[in-house]
């Protein structure tokens, strides 16, 4: 079944993605972001949901619901404002979970 790709974040960071064919969902408040993520995640229309790192940090509870599922894949991307390193931190947490201690990102 064909699914789409969504991007959630502040308007500035994500408006370009609409041109290349992704669905954009601008949001400004944390509540809005959590609601959006929940709605998009449950709708099952999206295979991938990109979040700006800002939104990513704010929606930990909602994200955990989709951790075990094949789709949607929820992936953080840097926004205009800052690059908080949330993406790399996430990878490092995977290594920690699998190996027991972070052997790859601790340099």
């Amino acid at each position, binding site marked *: 079944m064909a699914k789409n790709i969504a991007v959630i974040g502040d308007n500035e960071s994500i408006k370009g993605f609409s041109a290349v064919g992704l669905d954009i969902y601008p949001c400004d408040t944390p509540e809005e972001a959590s609601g959006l993520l929940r709605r998009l995640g449950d709708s099952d229309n999206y295979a991938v949901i990109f979040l700006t790192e800002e939104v990513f940090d704010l929606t930990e509870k909602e994200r955990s619901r989709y951790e075990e599922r094949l789709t949607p894949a929820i992936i953080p991307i840097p926004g205009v404002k800052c690059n908080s390193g949330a993406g790399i931190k996430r990878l490092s947490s*995977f290594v920690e979970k699998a190996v027991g201690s972070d052997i790859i990102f601790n340099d």
Partner: protein
Amino acid sequence: MAIMNVNPTRMMLSKLKKQLVTAVRGHKMLKDKRDELMRQFLELIKETRELREKIEKELSASNDHFVNASAVMSKQALDASLMSPKQQIMLEVDSHNVMSVEIPKFSSVARTNDKGDIFPYGFAFTSFELDDAVMSLEKLLPDMIRLAEIEKSCELMSAEIEKTRRRVNSLEHVMIPRYQETIKYIAMKLEENDRSSRTRLMKVKDMLLDKAHNYSANN
């Protein structure tokens, strides 16, 4: 190590021995599964890391283009030019099985094949910075889809590795020693019973001999 609360009977002994064999075999297989998953996971996480670093760098470059574009164009004009996109990306979701972990595989299908369709605006009233920004995003998109695919795989695999590791450890350090201890306990208990009944029989035989023939084994 605590032994199990079981009756020390021969039946229980053979049952436990069978269970021990199963546990040992399961332990070996789970250990192999963990090792193979770990190998694949480490390969994948290295690729993910490289791809993510590349994407983060290029995305921030493309964001810079957007900032420049919004500096030379009015906000309304910029929003209006991106308002009605022509292109739409669809993903076919497939999954394949790596050591009992279902990992996703995405293949993207664009609505139109025309390369120009990523520009939903006329070029007359927009800045070239906007073109650059959109073009760099377009170039980045396949990588981003690949990143989503492998990052999700890493997430699913790390959860499975953790589970498998716990199972291996509990078998290795709890279940198997417990079976071994219990088997040893039952074996010893049975031997002890054996010995005690043998001495009792010998004693009874002595007593019977004594009674029948006034014959004592001692003299």
